[in-house]
């Protein structure tokens, strides 16, 4: 067919095709780009035809994957050409080259609007197409009403109206807040009466978008959708051109059924009956035919009908019919149908009462796990994971393990994670669980994250019956010739703790155990060596009577590592060496690890995160939210207070469950006592993160999942307890966030108070990171808002509730965060005067139908405005003396202090930038520290601190704070007090009953601070 020739373009394309290699092609492209650039430079000499040609060439080059960073202007300018041919090219090339975020598009808005409201139908179409394909927020703001008018105008022909419908869909989908659809329910209902199937198809897509947000508004459309479906299914009044391989528009059928899935229930019995008739007809009447396209089209309709049936929660009979169909599908040869059968069966798991029928197909599904097609294998894995319960866990997990050795690398990680979770959730007995995990490490060690083996250690530690068994297993694996490093870690740990239980068995004497573990030492990395050292120390301790030869061997190793460059290894070597010389006392210090407090498996949490991350907001998902279903996978949402799930092995663990802070404290102290001075190093691998899960609850800082702080976090105003606290006025609202934050918000905040970058908040949809730079009294925080989803987050709002002492300016936060994108919002902070009040970020966004709102404390806290300063005794004491007595110097006896060794207290001070000056105070039980505070009113102000501790009672101390500003002195004193008293979580932050800070240099007589100081 002869096509409108553009000779220059054809020649260029031929040239490219004739290039022998990539290099030649690049040369030719560069030449052409140079040519185009020069031609565009003196634009006057360019005819419209030439301009058109060059713009097409640009697009072609762009399509080949080369950067085209110029000429966008020329493409955009063609849009305003008066003639159709140029305009057409302008619109289409612009839509291909640019995306909605390009600034150039702004230039075209006026022309586009004129074309849309003008009378030239062909121009209208071009403009609507471009806006529909790449229109962004500004287009929505200025064009949405015009587009709406076109859609419902009776004078417009179908070709314009169908484009208007989809154009509106795009604008609405991207910016639902800008496009006003009030009162559109009636209009939509009218549009569904449309006879032209092209317009109807487009309108149906629009309806899907509208109902997915507000199904209750569009009730009147429901019966009409059912009518359309009936009309199509019966093939009444469907023009020939809209049938596809004899099927009346399969696409419109699919879309209509999709729209119906957004209505929660169908109340009208007549409508419901007609719909079920249609569905029954589709379910029964779809046959497999030879023609591929016909087959695909009819099955597209069938699968959508299946989804709709599941959604409507039809009678059991119809459901079993569906499951039977799916059972047939997963066994057919046609790969597409097999894939979809598995996929839909997984969705079917959410429906009650069919799990047992699905289980009958287990063998077939396991076969699919070995399918040559990875897409199908993935579906099979998902389905097996979803259908697993106590009755079939053993079979399924063993299948997964078996498959692990032969599966391809892309799937191994997922496979091992899922096997580990299932093993944990549904273990019939714990020894089986230990077996599974050890096998997992053996077969796919690279993919077994630390979480998994930590979990094994937790279970074994908490279950005495299990300990000898685990030790035997660990010993057996060590005999294997080449084992994974994770296996070395876990077996060394287990044998260190429990090998003495095996002592009578052959090959299990302390010496044997030691030598087989020590064999592995040359092959392991530095992160494993500390674990091995702990194991040696424990072996030594258990060797009774002492074996001198073994002792010398181990001591030699300790001595060797005493000069190791890795601090963790070195410290352990030194300490173990010293300890092991203490003889029998060693047994007390290196006693068995105490039981771990029970908590939700980090593994399962992780899996949930992954799932919510990838799960799209969909009809199915919506339904899952609307109805309580007993799905095993997605809906496993337990309350945030860490109650163990009702199912599975967790309940087998014989540990007093942790119900609150008080319990936690007991455990914490217990551990400290048992392990004495070694509490920090004993058997903890180097980094806190590494054993974070294992020892997390024992760490000194805030309790993970501490009941109190999490609950307040959910209610939105975490840690800002007092409404009377004048500065952080945060209205206590009832919030109905359905989205749970990941991690503890309070903990994240406290971590950020001590460092300058990190994550402030995270939930399945968004992650908010903070990076801060502080200079004197000014700070620049950058908030990183990252959308974790594949669909955009909309209606994003961020408001800073700043206390009066902070001047804060937040840059514009975009309303929409595109999929998988991260936006940065700088926040400028100026500190006017000293105060401990905390700024709050009131943050909300909409995902699907749920509005998520959180009030997050911002780490713009007092210590950020401090700068440590080193003073000598000659500088310190004159200052100290010159600041005499209240209000510049305040003294207070603080009781209820968290007991800390002096060294740690010094570290604590340094961590919030109050610099401890060692040796300045002659009394070794005292600390003297200094820092500089910056604010606009005080400028740089020197602050001096002295803490006198009582070695007999570490829970109280006397603190004196001095500075040249009374408010500063008071605030700093209170601040330090908070850090020292520090009941984790809730009462940190602005202390609830804190006395009102003095507002100026003149202190009112009733100022409690002054009174306090006076009392002392």
């Amino acid at each position, binding site marked *: 067919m002869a*096509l409108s020739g553009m000779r220059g373009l054809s020649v260029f394309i031929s040239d490219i095709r004739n290039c022998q290699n990539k290099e030649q092609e690049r040369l030719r492209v560069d030449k052409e780009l140079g040519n185009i650039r020069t031609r565009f430079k003196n634009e006057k000499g360019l005819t419209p035809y030439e301009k058109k040609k060059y713009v097409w060439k640009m697009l072609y080059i762009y399509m080949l994957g080369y950067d085209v960073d110029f000429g966008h202007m020329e493409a955009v300018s063609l849009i305003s050409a008066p003639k159709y041919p140029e305009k057409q090219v302008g619109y289409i090339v612009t839509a291909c080259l640019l995306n909605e975020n390009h600034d150039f598009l702004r230039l075209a808005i006026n022309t586009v609007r004129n074309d849309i409201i003008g009378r030239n139908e062909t121009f209208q179409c071009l403009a609507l197409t471009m806006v529909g394909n790449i229109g962004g927020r500004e287009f929505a703001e200025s064009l949405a009403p015009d587009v709406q008018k076109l859609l419902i105008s009776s004078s417009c022909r179908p070709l314009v109206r169908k*484009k208007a419908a989809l154009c509106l869909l795009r604008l609405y989908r991207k910016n639902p807040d800008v496009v006003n659809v009030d009162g559109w329910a009636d209009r939509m209902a009218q549009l569904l009466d449309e006879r032209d199937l092209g317009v109807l198809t487009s309108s149906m897509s629009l309806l899907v978008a509208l109902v997915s947000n507000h199904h209750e508004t569009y009730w009147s459309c429901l019966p009409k959708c059912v009518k359309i479906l009936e009309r199509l299914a019966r093939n009444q009044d469907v023009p020939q051109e809209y049938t*596809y391989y004899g099927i009346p528009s399969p*696409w419109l059928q*699919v879309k209509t059924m*999709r729209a119906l899935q957004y209505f929660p229930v169908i109340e009208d019995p007549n409508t419901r009956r007609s719909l079920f008739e249609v569905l029954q007809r589709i379910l029964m009447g779809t046959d497999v035919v030879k023609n591929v396209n016909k087959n695909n089209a009819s099955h*597209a309709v069938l699968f959508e009908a299946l989804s709709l049936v599941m959604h409507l929660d039809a009678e059991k009979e119809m459901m079993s019919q569906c499951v039977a169909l799916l059972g047939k599908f997963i066994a057919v040869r046609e790969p597409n149908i097999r894939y*979809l059968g598995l996929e839909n069966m997984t969705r079917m798991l959410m429906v009650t009462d069919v799990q047992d029928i699905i289980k009958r197909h287990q063998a077939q599904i396991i076969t699919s796990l070995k399918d040559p097609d990875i897409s199908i294998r993935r579906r099979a894995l998902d389905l097996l994971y979803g259908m697993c319960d106590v009755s079939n866990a053993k079979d399924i997990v063993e299948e997964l393990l078996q498959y692990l050795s032969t599966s391809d690398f892309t799937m191994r990680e997922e496979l091992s994670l899922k096997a580990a979770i299932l093993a944990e959730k549904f273990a019939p007995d714990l020894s089986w669980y230990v077996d599974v995990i050890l096998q997992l490490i053996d077969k796919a060690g690279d993919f077994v994250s630390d979480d998994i083996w930590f979990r094994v250690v937790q279970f074994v530690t908490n279950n005495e019956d299990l300990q000898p068994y685990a030790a035997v297993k660990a010993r057996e694996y060590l005999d294997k010739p080449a084992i994974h490093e994770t296996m070395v870690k876990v077996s060394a740990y287990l044998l260190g703790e429990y090998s003495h239980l095996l002592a009578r068995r052959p090959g299990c004497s302390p010496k044997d155990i030691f030598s087989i573990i020590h064999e592995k030492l040359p092959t392991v990395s530095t992160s494993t060596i500390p674990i091995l050292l702990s194991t040696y120390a424990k072996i030594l301790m258990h060797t009774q009577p002492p074996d001198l030869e073994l002792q010398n061997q181990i001591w030699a190793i300790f001595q060797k590592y005493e000069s190791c460059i890795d601090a963790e290894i070195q410290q352990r070597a030194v300490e173990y060496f010293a300890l092991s010389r203490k003889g029998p006392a060693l047994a007390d210090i290196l006693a068995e690890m105490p039981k771990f407090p029970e908590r939700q498996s980090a593994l399962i949490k992780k899996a949930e995160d992954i799932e919510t*991350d990838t799960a*799209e907001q969909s009809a199915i998902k919506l339904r899952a939210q609307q109805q309580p279903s007993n799905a095993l996978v997605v809906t496993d949402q337990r309350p945030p207070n860490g109650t163990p799930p009702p199912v599975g092995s967790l309940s087998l663990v014989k540990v007093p469950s942790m119900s609150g802070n008080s319990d936690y404290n007991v455990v914490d102290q217990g551990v400290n006592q048992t392990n004495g001075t070694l509490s920090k190093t004993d058997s903890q691998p180097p980094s806190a993160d590494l054993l974070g899960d294992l020892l997390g609850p024992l760490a000194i800082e805030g309790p993970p999942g501490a009941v109190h702080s999490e609950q307040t976090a959910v209610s939105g105003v975490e840690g800002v307890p007092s409404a009377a606290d004048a500065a952080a006025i945060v209205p206590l609202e009832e919030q109905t966030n359905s989205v749970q934050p990941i991690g503890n918000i309070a903990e994240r905040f406290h971590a950020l108070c001590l460092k300058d970058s990190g994550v402030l908040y995270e939930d399945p949809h968004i992650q908010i990171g903070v990076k801060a730079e502080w200079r004197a009294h000014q700070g620049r925080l950058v908030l990183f808002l990252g959308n974790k989803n594949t669909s955009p987050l909309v209606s994003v709002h961020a408001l800073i509730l700043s206390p009066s002492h902070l001047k804060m300016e937040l840059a514009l936060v975009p309303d929409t965060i595109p999929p998988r994108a991260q936006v940065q919002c700088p926040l400028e902070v100026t500190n006017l005067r000293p105060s401990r009040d905390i700024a709050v970020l009131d943050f909300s966004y909409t995902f699907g139908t749920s509005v998520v709102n959180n009030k997050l404390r911002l780490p713009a806290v007092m210590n950020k405005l401090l700068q440590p300063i080193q003073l000598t005794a000659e500088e310190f004491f004159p200052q100290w003396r010159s600041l005499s007595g209240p209000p510049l110097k305040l003294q207070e006896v603080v009781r209820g202090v968290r007991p800390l060794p002096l060294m740690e207290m010094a570290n604590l001070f340094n961590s919030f930038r109050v610099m401890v000056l060692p040796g300045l105070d002659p009394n070794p039980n005292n600390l003297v520290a200094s820092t500089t505070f910056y604010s606009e009113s005080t400028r740089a102000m020197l602050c001096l601190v002295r803490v006198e501790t009582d070695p007999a009672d570490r829970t109280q101390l006397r603190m004196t704070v001095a500075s040249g500003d009374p408010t500063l002195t008071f605030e700093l004193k209170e601040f330090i007090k908070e850090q020292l008293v520090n009941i984790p979580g809730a009462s940190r932050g602005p202390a609830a009953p804190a006395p009102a800070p003095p507002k100026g240099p003149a202190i009112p007589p009733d100022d409690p601070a002054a009174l306090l100081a006076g009392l002392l």
Partner: protein
Amino acid sequence: MIHFVLLISRQGKVRLTKWYSPYSQKERTKVIRELSGLILTRGPKLCNFVEWRGLKVVYRRYASLYFCMCIDQDDNELEVLEIIHLFVEILDRYFGSVCELDLIFNFHKAYYILDELLLAGELQETSKKTVGRLIAGQDALVETAKEEANSISNMIAQATK
């Protein structure tokens, strides 16, 4: 919705790209590279769906050309598979038994046709006849404009003789 449409040859050459979701130039190149590696290596007897970055790519091979459309995870895969076929049938009608060369040299035509079939990542028109009619109408408009331009330049040429 359809996030993008890709036409890739067996050799990995890009023949057409259309993006309905915002991807930057860099991301576009990356996506194409990733998907070429994923799809071109798949054997013939496998299913037409590939799971990719939380989305799904529905693809279909015609001779040496792969037509790919990327959709959301819970979209109807078979429906999209047949959109691909509908597109191919329309191209076939327009070019008269279409081949890869037609699409290489007339890639702009392919864009026009795609714009009548899909809009905003959604299906716009399912009648091959209607799409054909609209494209023919556009071609006619371009032709008339050309003739007009020619006759004007003739008139100018005669007047200046």
